[in-house]
Structure formats: C-alpha cells, structure tokens
C-alpha cells in the first residue's frame, strides 16, 4: 500500500458509522434548540410588529412611523451593534462605543466647520480608529481584560468630546455643507440615508462573519482562544481588528449623528454601549463568545426600537418605561439561553 495516500488507507478500515439513530435524533433536537435560540429575536420581532399593527393600525405601520421614526432613529445604534457583534463573538466587550460616537460627532462638527466635510469625516474616523487600535493592541498584545481597557477608553473618548466643546459650553455647529446634511437627513428612493448605510454595513458584516476566513477566526477565538492560537490562526491580528472596526463603526455613527443635527453634542450616545450589547445578546450571541449571528443583531436592534415606538404610541407611559421593558427582554433572553444551554448538556 506504499503508493496510497494516508486518507485512502484510513478509509479502507472497515467499520460501521460511529453515529447511530439515537445520536441523530439528539442532533436534530439540539439543532432545533439552537434554531430557537438564534432566531428568538426574529420571532419576538414578528410578534411585536403584529401586536403593534393590531393595536395602533395605520399609525404604526405607516412609513412615516416605521421608516422615518423607527428605522431612522435606530440606524446609529445598528451601526454600533454591528461592531459589537464581532467583539462579543470573540468573547470580548466594547464599552467605549457610546463615548467614541460622541467624540467622533464632536470632532466631525468641529473639523468640518473649519476645513470642510471631507477633513471633518477623516478626522472623526481617524480619531475613532486610533482609540480602537489602542484598545485592540492593549487587549491582544498585552492580554489586558477588554472590560477594563474599554472602560478606560470610554472615559478617554468622552473626555476628548467634552474638551473639544469646552466642557459642553460651546456648541460646535457644522456650517452649510449640503452633502453632509444629506448624509444625515437625505433619502434615496424614500429610504433615509443613515438607514441605507446601516443596511449596507449589515450586509457587509454578515458576509465577513459568515463567509470570510477572518470571520471564521473571529468565531474560533471566541470558542477557544488557546486552541485558535495552537491551530496557527492569526489571533492577535484579528482580535485587534475587531476593536478597530467596532470603533470605526461607532465613529461612522457619530459622523451621521453630527450630520443629521448639524452639531456635535458631547453627550451623544450616552449608554449606547449597553443598548448595543443588549441588542447583540437579544440577537442570540453568547457573551462568553463563539456564537452569534448578524441577522440576530439586526433583529435585536429592530426589536428594541419597535418596543420604544410602541411605548411612545401608548403615550401615557413614561419614556423610561422602555428601559424597564427592554431590561425585561434582555433578562428573558439570557434566561432562555442558560436554560437551553443546560438542556443541551444533559444527556
């Protein structure tokens, strides 16, 4: 058998399949469980949409509401959540995104007012990218915990945002730059530009996650970082890059917010990191890493936005009641995940 390959020879060993029917049934059940876990957000979204339509009729489903209020309002969170999905699948967390968003918004406004929109956007994204790179390097090379590093990054970026605006006393106004305003408020075929950008980012994000080698490495790092590095995968490079991309997406959201309001608010994006984490987790990603889906995140973002909208439609409920409801949702999803994970482990 000298001229046969290793693989062919191994195949010549007789023996029935190792898997039997009972295993197959268990596999099927596990896959069903996984489907519920991954697509729970989509199901919940459908339910709330139906409930909203039933309760508020045309007021709810009208494009003025769903497209120009719900979708346009959540495009910024959506961009941030795309980056957060990558970070969370690697088993990390990025608390800095809300602050990076504010920093980028302020820098974009400040630089645009002086040197024009191109420079403004470049400065804003450059600053965001630098914060992301710094965080990524500290986490991947120096092995510092992502929670602490991005907590520090959050304070740093928020500090810059306040510094640029003279501790918030000075309002930075973008001048009259038409195309910049179009980025924030314009529409293409009736779809708000920020929504369009967010959707394109989602498409690219899903493709990168599911269909590129880098995406595979992202999952492998979250599944088992040691195994990933023993398999010879570029763990450090990919870990660094997810934090860079997270910051860049937050920066992009900041630019769009500045463009929409023609001003850079240093208080923009307060708490957005937590909303983004909530959306990603509701979308079925595991905070321990290794599992998650871009479509789940999209559903998670949409679900949070629709709930807020429904509460606004009721009108008599406090704004803050939305936080209570989305907190409840988050808890429910985490409980469901824990319960399913336990069922999966038991024989």
């Amino acid at each position, binding site marked *: *058998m*000298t001229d*046969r*390959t*290793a*693989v*062919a*020879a*191994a*195949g*010549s*060993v007789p*023996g029935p*399949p*190792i*898997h039997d029917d009972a*295993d197959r049934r*268990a*596999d099927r059940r*596990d*896959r069903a469980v*996984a489907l519920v876990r991954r697509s729970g957000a989509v199901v919940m979204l459908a339910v709330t949409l139906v409930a909203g339509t039933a309760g508020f009729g045309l007021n709810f489903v009208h494009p003025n509401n769903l497209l120009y209020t719900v979708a346009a309002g959540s495009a910024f969170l959506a961009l941030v959540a795309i980056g957060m999905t990558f970070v969370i699948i690697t088993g990390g967390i990025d608390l800095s995104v809300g602050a990076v968003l504010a920093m980028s918004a302020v820098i974009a406004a400040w630089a645009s007012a002086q040197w024009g929109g191109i420079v403004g956007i470049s400065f804003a994204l450059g600053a965001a990218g630098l914060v992301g790179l710094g965080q990524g390097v500290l986490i991947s090379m120096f092995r510092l915990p992502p929670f602490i590093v991005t907590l520090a990054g959050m304070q740093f970026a928020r500090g810059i945002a306040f510094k640029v605006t003279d501790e918030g006393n000075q309002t930075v106004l973008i001048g009259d730059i038409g195309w910049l305003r179009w980025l924030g408020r314009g529409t293409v075929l009736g779809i708000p530009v920020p929504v369009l950008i967010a959707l394109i980012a989602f498409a690219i994000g899903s*493709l990168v996650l*599911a*269909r*590129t*080698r880098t*995406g*595979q*490495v992202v*999952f*492998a790092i*979250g*599944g*088992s970082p*040691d*195994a*990933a*590095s*023993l*398999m*010879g*995968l*570029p763990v450090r490079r990919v870990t660094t890059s997810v934090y860079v991309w997270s910051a860049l997406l937050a920066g992009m959201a900041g630019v769009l917010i500045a463009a929409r309001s023609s001003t850079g608010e240093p208080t923009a994006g307060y708490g957005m990191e937590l909303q983004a984490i909530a959306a990603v987790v509701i979308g079925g990603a595991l905070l321990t890493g*290794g*599992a998650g889906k871009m479509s789940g995140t999209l559903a998670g973002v949409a679900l949070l936005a629709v709930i807020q909208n429904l509460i606004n439609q009721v009108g008599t409920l406090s704004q803050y009641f939305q936080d209570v409801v989305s907190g409840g949702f988050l808890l429910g999803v985490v409980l469901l995940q824990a319960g399913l994970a336990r069922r*999966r482990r038991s024989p």
Partner: protein
Amino acid sequence: MVKSDLAPRGSGAKHDLALEVREVSKHFGGVTALDNVSFSLAPGEVRALIGENGAGKSTLIKVMTGVYRPDAGELRYLGERVELHTPRDAQDAGISTIYQEINLAPQMSAARNLYLGREPRTRLGLVDVRRMVSDAREVLSQFGVYVDPRTSLRELGMGVQQMVAVARAVTTDARVVIMDEPTSSLEPREVDRLFAVIRALRDSGVGVVYVSHKLDEVFAICDSITVLRDGKRVHDGPAAELDRLGLVGHMLGRSPEELRSAAPSRRTPVPHDSEVPALLNVQGLHRRHVLHDVSLQVRSGEVVGLAGLLGSRRSETVKAIFGALPVETGSVHIDGVELAPVTPARALAAGLALLPEDRKLEGIIPDQSIKENIVLAALPRLSRAGVVSDARRDELVEVFMRRLRIKAASPNQKVRELSGGNQQKVLLARLLCLQPRVLLLDEPTRGIDVGAKEEVRALIDELADAGLGVVLISSELEELADGADHVVVLQDGRVAGELSAGHISEGEIMTIIAHHDDQQSQVGS
C-alpha cells in the same frame, strides 16, 4: 518567517532526517525542563516519545511546534536549521500537531474546524461553504466518521472530535505529524482506525512522533523509542531492541537487574485476608474511559499502595472513592456501611480524608497561618453556635504540630514561608483534625526534600500503626515496596495485579506493569 530557509517541499532532495532536535535545553526560572536533549525523526519513521510526569515530554513537543523557543541547542527540519517562533511557523513549514486535549473550536462545525485557516474559497475570495462541507464529508468518511459536517463539534462524541483533530492535522500536507496521546478518548475500534492512518502516513514518508503511556500501543505501532526522565534523554533506540520491562525500567529509572536484589519491606506486614473485615471496601468503580471495575480493600492498620504509570488513573481512583469524581457504577463501604451516593461531604463524615496530589492547587492557603490552615476543615467541629473556641483551637493546633513535628517559628507563621515538607505536614494535620479512619494520600512525598520524605514516610507508618487505614499513591516504587502492606497495580484504569505482603518488590511491581497488556491481549484473542 522560516519558509525561505526551507527546501521546497516535494523536491527531489533527499533528507536523512525529517526533524532533528540537537542538544536542546530549556529552563523555566530555576527549573530545568530539558537538559541537553537530542531527538531525531526520519521520514517514514514512527517514533515513540515516552516519559513519566515531569520528564519533559510536553516541553520537547512545544519546542518542536514553535510554542517555546529553546534556551540552547538547535532545531533542524529537512536538513536545514530552522527557527520556529509561533505554532503557525511550524504548521506552515509542515509540522502538524494533535494536542492531548482536543484543541479545536467547540461551537464551530466539524467542517469549519477541519478547514479553519485554510478554507476553500470562491473566485471572489469568500469561503466556499458548499465545497467545504462536501470536502469535509468525504475526508471524514475516509477516517470512519460518518456525521453531518455541519454539526457543531461539541455535539459530537469525544472520539469523533479526536478523529476530526487527527484529520485536520493529517490533511495539511505535513512532513511531520506529532501526536500527543491521541488515543486518550478513543474506543478500541477507533484506535485501530488511527493506527491505519499512522501506517499510511509512514508509508508515504511522513515522520510521526507518537506520545503515549500505553505500552501496548507503543510496541504495536512504533519503530523506535525515545525515553525522557527528569528532562534528560535516558534511552534512544529501535523498539525491537527493548522489552516491556526494560522500557518501564527506563521510565522509572530502575534497571531490572538492580531490582532483583531489592531490599524487603521495612514494615511488619499486616495480613491482607478476608478474615478481617475491611475498614474501606471499594467495589467495581466504573466510569467510561476512566475507571474500569476497580476494587480494593483496606483494613485497619494497613497501608495499601496504588502503583502504576502516568495515566493509570491512580488519582482518579482515590478521587472516585472520596466522591470527588462521579462514577457510573460501583460502591464504597466504610466499616460495612455504604456511602450512597458518595459525596465528599458524606465521605468526610464517614471518616475518609483525601490528601490531594497538587497541594498548591487544591490544598494549602499560602497566605494564612499554620493555625488557620490546620483548623480550616475542622472549624464546624470546634465551634458552638458559630463561635470558635480559641482555647480549644490552640490546643488542637499545638498537639498536631508536636505530633507531626512541624518545624515553624510559631503557629502564626504563614504557610508560604515553610518548606515543602512542612507544608505537606500542615495538610496532613488538617486531615487528622477531622479524626479520619481512612487516609487517601496522593503522592504525599512529591516535591519535598529527601529528609522530609523520610519523615513523612515514618509518619504514615505511625498513623497506620495507630489503627488508621491508608491508601498510598506514589510514583516512587521504592516508597511502595518499603512502605506498603499490599499493593494494587493499576493500568489504564484497570486493576492489573495485586501483590501481598512478602511478595512486594520494585521488580514485581514493574513486571506487572510491563506485562499486563500482554495478558490482556491474550485474554482478548
């Protein structure tokens, strides 16, 4: 990168050696893990790398796979000197490794694990999922694994996961494949399949490093054997020139001749017969892949030694007796009363006490005082309504420090400041505080100096003489031959043989270890 240094793969160039390690040393702090070790592997050779705990096997593997860089010496691959900085360098060069614990991404599918980092891609540069899955299905079926490659890995059995790891390593176009205990989670049928893969690799000119402590596997598949002990190479030669006893002798550092004249036990034997009721009676402990029908009895005043090589499941056996390792079947009786089910709390209450193998990890609290460490486990017994009586505590601590001859400035000294031997005595004192009837001691003299070893051994004798039953695990044959009244030899989680008082010697223990597999295969055929 190393690639430029390498001869192009598949070129006509002939190399005498696929991989060569020349006089490599590696130190960690003050500890020497490898001392001037050389190792060579020819194309088409299957070489066993053998050694007990701490022999330096894993360090050598990590040097060969780019995880560690040697402090001295060099690595040659296909006749050229190479420097491997990362596992990736080694893989790119063609050195592929299957690690002992399955090192794959559990949440990802079998297909994705198989092709991680080298996924087939479409013209657009995207991962070609359809081709990846169909390729994976074909490759896996050739390894006897018939599962849906889209199933995530952790939903598959351990054996299947291991075969995925093997398939991944073997299909990377490697010139050298290193297998670190690849059979630890395989069924016998899967082992046969693995051996077929290894033979095919050998026939196609790939060099295989086979790490295992299962002697029958080593003699079945390997052409040559390298034995490490305490970081040094102690044997290197063809497998045909070594018999089992000789191999075990190299591993344990005892030549068979030396052993024939071993001195008799220093202990006056305690009769190990069925007339005297057993204090501890363990029957038929079984746990898949770990323990297979392990039974043993300990009588009052008796020291029962557990012998065996690394991986013989000695520690698992005592953990199972203590309830720290769940078993599928089996029973533990103390003084005729069954502990059902066995839990550590119930075992403690019944009078069992376990001294764990790794005292740093599982035992002492280094920053607390001797006093606190000793009474830690006994606190519930010393307190009334939650309040600990200081006077009673101090009295108890003083008694044990005197009885165990713990050398320390005061009971308030921190345990981290003590020598290893005295730390071990503090742990023993903690166990004795609980007034146990049976002690399970897992390597009580490991890592302590020679004088302290003697003291601990004398202490064990004293405790047995005082009527306690003792189960003693030791990797030092001498310690068992001298200090045990009865020896149970384990191999792969099975009882391979027993020796009663008067018949215990280092040579007898080694003979059982070396020939157990023979007997088993005869029985099986």
